[in-house]
């Protein structure tokens, strides 16, 4: 195999790995290392990078482990697995130590929306009697926090199971939130700094008349 072919094959493997699963686990890496044994190191590094990225979003979350038929692993696959878990353990440990010592892992407060999966996000939307567009604007800090009624932020904090202060801290961060998993069809780079008042957001998010009336009465 020529060098160019090998590079193209690695590129394909990395791309396929990134699409296969949001957060790669040991079983997935195992499958890819078996398919592309010549790129075991690169695939392992890439899987670690993806897993670390996801850890930043879901801070302190447990990394899913998959049961493996350990006795069937080749030495190369075992080494890759071992490196994968060792590195993740090191990153998680260092973050836990930072939190225990009161040292913030980042200046940006945790995003209280980040741990919600799609069902939980939609459940929250339904219980708040809003729609997903309005909730996205809240999550991504497109609504000026000072214009949001306290009654609404209290309800939202309750739904997110965080103290109102934590929610307000998230909403008041300067700069916009960039959630993972947003795909754009645009001529230019995304504009994340567009702001609306609560009232404007209520009127422009496709909420029905009754929803708008209830929100504006808060």
């Amino acid at each position: 195999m020529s060098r160019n072919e090998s590079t193209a094959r690695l590129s394909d493997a990395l791309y396929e790995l990134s699409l296969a699963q949001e957060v790669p686990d040991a079983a997935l890496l195992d499958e890819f290392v078996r398919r592309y044994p010549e790129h075991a190191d690169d695939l392992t590094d890439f899987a670690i990078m993806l897993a670390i990225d996801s850890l930043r979003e879901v801070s302190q979350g447990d990394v899913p482990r998959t049961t493996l038929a350990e006795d069937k692993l080749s030495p190369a696959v075992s080494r890759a697995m071992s490196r994968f878990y060792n590195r993740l353990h090191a990153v998680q440990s260092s973050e836990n130590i930072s939190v225990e010592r009161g040292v913030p892992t980042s200046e940006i407060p945790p995003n209280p929306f980040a741990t919600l999966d799609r069902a939980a996000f939609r459940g929250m939307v339904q219980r708040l009697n809003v729609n997903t567009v309005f909730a996205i604007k809240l999550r991504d800090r497109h609504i000026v926090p000072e214009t949001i009624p306290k009654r609404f932020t209290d309800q939202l904090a309750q739904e997110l199971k965080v103290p109102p202060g934590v929610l307000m801290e998230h909403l008041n961060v300067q700069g916009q939130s960039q959630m993972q998993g947003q795909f754009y069809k645009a001529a230019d780079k995304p504009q994340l700094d567009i702001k609306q008042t609560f009232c404007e957001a209520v009127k422009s998010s496709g909420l029905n008349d009754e929803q708008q009336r209830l929100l504006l009465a808060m």
Partner: protein
Amino acid sequence: MDSLELIRDSATTMHSMLVANGVDPLDPEAMVQAAIQDLELVMTFLPQGDAGLKGARALFDDQSGTICCEITDSLVVSSLLCKRSS
């Protein structure tokens, strides 16, 4: 392997499945609506420049499973924007 091949494959599979279920392949709006329903997504049209679009013409938000699409006069353009962002 073309790196977009996986995406093309899944789009082709869905297209075939929808057509087999009776959706008119020559009606782009019907195809988009059927695909959105099949994938259990939500589609919302927003005014051009709305904060929810973040400067884009269409946007797919994975966490909520929502497609936000710019309001246009052309049905074909709207359908294309929705298809390309989902």
